[in-house]
């Protein structure tokens, strides 16, 4: 097929009850590639859900009630989800470093696994953040879809 990438833009209210809808859209889109394993699709659902969760939290912190923007791109070689918020932004390289799992103080940290999961469950993660918001691009390769990065 020589057609270009299929691209769909949609918006969701910045509310947690819409996370499940986003995951459904990830699954529906990913299942269009018959070579993508169910496990890989589940991985990507977690990654996109984490990014969307962060976006919803960013709007809550900024007291914004406008929508989260999501772009889904299905190309021959990859599936991408861009998640865009208009929160205050953050610096990914300044995120708190968690204690090692064997460290008893690790139990004091209920948060902080989101970006880690995005990185290990996607083939590519790009995060651009500034004072006007954050854009997270998550992608999985469709040609070598079953090799976890």
């Amino acid at each position, binding site marked *: 097929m020589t057609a270009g990438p299929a691209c769909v833009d*949609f918006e969701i209210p910045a509310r*947690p009850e819409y*996370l*499940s809808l986003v995951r459904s859209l990830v699954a529906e889109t990913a299942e269009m590639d018959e070579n993508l394993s169910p496990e890989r699709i589940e991985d990507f659902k977690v990654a996109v*859900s984490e990014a969307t969760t962060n976006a*919803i939290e960013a709007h809550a912190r900024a007291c914004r009630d406008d929508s989260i923007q999501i772009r889904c791109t299905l190309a021959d070689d990859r599936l991408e989800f861009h998640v865009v918020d208009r929160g205050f932004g953050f610096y990914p390289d300044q995120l708190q470093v968690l204690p090692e*799992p064997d460290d008893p103080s690790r*139990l004091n940290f209920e948060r902080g*696994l989101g970006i880690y999961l995005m990185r*290990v469950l996607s083939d590519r993660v790009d995060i651009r953040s500034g004072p006007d918001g954050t854009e997270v691009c998550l992608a999985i390769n469709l040609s070598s879809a079953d090799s976890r990065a």
Partner: protein
Amino acid sequence: MFGNAPGVQIVCYFVDFNVTVAARGHWQVLTVAGEIDMATAPRFRQRLLGVIGAGARHVVIDISGVDFIDSTGLGVVMGGAKRVRSAGGDIRLVAASSRLAELIELTRLDRAVDVFKSVSAATEDAGS
């Protein structure tokens, strides 16, 4: 950022989620079903902390019936483990599916909480 996105107008979207609690020996077993994310984690946390607050010191969380769990849900388990341990108790996790076990291993939660394949295995000392 994407210009005039046409958008998908959804009025309401319900998330499948349920927690039940039952005693098994001296263990309180929370059986969780459905999806655990930012939308449902507050209910999961409330139920777990309610059980701990009521005095339970031996808690099993069975997530075998969970279709989806993310870092928010895993964080609730971590929070519960912290509270139970600080009270001198024990908390165990049951994840029957390989998919859940893989995610738990990936986040190394299995190094903080003992993980079992079944409620029976997790509560083997229920009569002690």
